[in-house]
């Protein structure tokens, strides 16, 4: 793919929940392009609709209006059966809560083995386990230590790293990372963010990073989309958005992040 061509794009993307009096427009006619090998952050507070966009891009939720295009093809073409699998081979996700992302009744090995149903070639159990080991090493988790453990026996940081190991296994083209650091200790965040950067650099992955924290968005991304009440109110180069924001909401989001060298209250 060409570096500057859009891999994932939205046109008039809208999602409405409920109807009548209880109608909520979670995402309201949003347009954007995410380019090949780019890390884009979607920043907004809770309830802004950012997670809903993530779910629609992951083909887990249908848009009410508008369309999503993946390498020029309408996502509707991937709605069912084999095509849906095809899509999930190329577009994958990591969620906020690494604990509830696992089936807690299965060991880590068994949780990760299920990922292989996305792959075409048949593999023996040994081949699968070897690949699982490899991917766990890539995220700095000791395979011998965790493979036979259950999710509740691991720390939050380890769980999220294992979720990223899953991504190294699948090697999708696009990763939708929905608040992957928000339930993790501050000391471990940079490690997770650096793994995202590694996925982009080593695997040529395009990443949409969803967060409420402008600091994290600035740390990891090339471009930032600012979302407020279902709309993207400002988008641009990360540097530009953080240091020269033009929309008042962007300014508020930035000033809400506590920094060390400036008064905040």
């Amino acid at each position, binding site marked *: 793919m060409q570096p500057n061509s859009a891999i994932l794009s939205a046109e008039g993307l809208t999602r409405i929940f409920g109807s009548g009096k209880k109608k909520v427009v979670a995402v309201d006619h949003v347009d954007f392009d995410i380019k090949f090998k780019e890390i884009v952050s979607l920043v907004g507070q809770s309830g802004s609709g950012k997670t809903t966009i993530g779910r629609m891009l992951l083909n887990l939720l249908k848009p009410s209006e508008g369309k999503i295009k993946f390498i020029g093809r309408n996502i509707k073409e991937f709605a069912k059966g084999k095509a849906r699998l095809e899509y999930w081979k190329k577009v994958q996700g990591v969620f906020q809560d690494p604990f509830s992302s696992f089936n807690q009744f299965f060991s880590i090995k068994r949780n990760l083995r299920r990922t292989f149903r996305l792959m075409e070639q048949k593999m023996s159990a040994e081949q699968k386990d070897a690949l699982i080991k490899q991917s766990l090493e890539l995220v700095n988790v000791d395979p011998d230590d965790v493979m036979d453990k259950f999710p509740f026996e691991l720390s939050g940081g380890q769980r999220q790293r294992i979720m990223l190991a899953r991504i190294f296994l699948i090697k999708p083209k696009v990763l939708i990372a929905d608040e992957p650091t928000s339930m993790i200790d501050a000391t471990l965040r940079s490690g997770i963010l650096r793994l995202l950067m590694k996925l982009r650099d080593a695997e040529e992955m395009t990443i949409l990073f969803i967060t*409420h924290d*402008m600091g994290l968005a600035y740390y990891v991304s090339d471009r930032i989309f600012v979302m407020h009440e279902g709309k993207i109110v400002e988008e641009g180069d990360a540097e530009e958005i953080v240091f020269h924001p033009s929309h008042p909401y962007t300014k508020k989001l930035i000033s809400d992040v506590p920094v060390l060298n400036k008064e905040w209250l």
Partner: protein
Amino acid sequence: MKVKKLVAEVENLKAYYKVKGRILKAVDGVSLGLRDGEVLGIAGESGCGKSTLAMSLSGLFLPPLKYYGGKIKLKDIEISKMDRKLLRKNVLGKKISFIPQSAMNALNPTLKIRNFVIDVLKEHEPELSEEEIIDRVEERFDSLSLSKRVINSYPFELSGGMKQRVITVISTLMNPEILLADEPTSALDVSSQHQIIKLIKTLLERRIVKSVVFITHELPLLRHIADRIAIMYAGQIVERGTTSQIIFSPLHPYTKMLMSSIITPEKGMKGKELPVVSGSPPNLYEIVAGCRFAERCPYVTEECKINEIKFHKIGDREVRCLHPLTERNGINAAK
């Protein structure tokens, strides 16, 4: 500056969990003083014992947590060995209010906020009528510029940030002297965090609460709300000092590590290589001899691994470290 009087004093507090016959030393000899009018921040990674410390400070040791020693003094009353019923009746809510980490998700979804408040207050002051309670709540909500409409809502109708503010206001209705808040902001987005912090500041300024213990893993928040900070590691406090001392010139290598992992939207942060700290906090079932941070410390020497490290006084500061980062910070150790 005159040192303010203490509202609470904790001496060598030990609170352990008994799990399957093994003992997990979550709070292992913690001493602190809480002064009138201050916010004391307690920071550390998950599993360091800070949540257990918060719970223990309320004097309520619920199984599997057990009290193993030490004192918790509120002015002249000792609450660590107090009968649980008496504690609930006379201390909790009135003198100390504890907001656990998951409080906002523990709200009963079938009860309106007003019924929840009535339940809570009736438990402490059964003689109050429902009207009196609601009047009091409305007045308090008004004075803190929270919408009164919230009182007649169900929890699911409120955002996470609003729920957390509501819980904070309700927990302080009886004007407790001490507010213990365990990670009140960690599940919230930055904008809601900002509002909670402002709310807590207002509660202090109006003397609705006299002092606050604020537990978090987010040091940047403490920079703005805390007067003093205690850093906790593996069940112990490893460094304490004023906020600016801890944030801008940490003495303990662990504090420094916490500080350097902070990510903010400031120049120079983009993609910056931050120190990746190898290893993980020690197992609190079997505590090793010597410094508990030794295994992960870049400045470790053989000496560190022999004896338990005591607090060293450096000027007006205290740190559990044989090789504090004094020279690097330009602090004169001899002072």
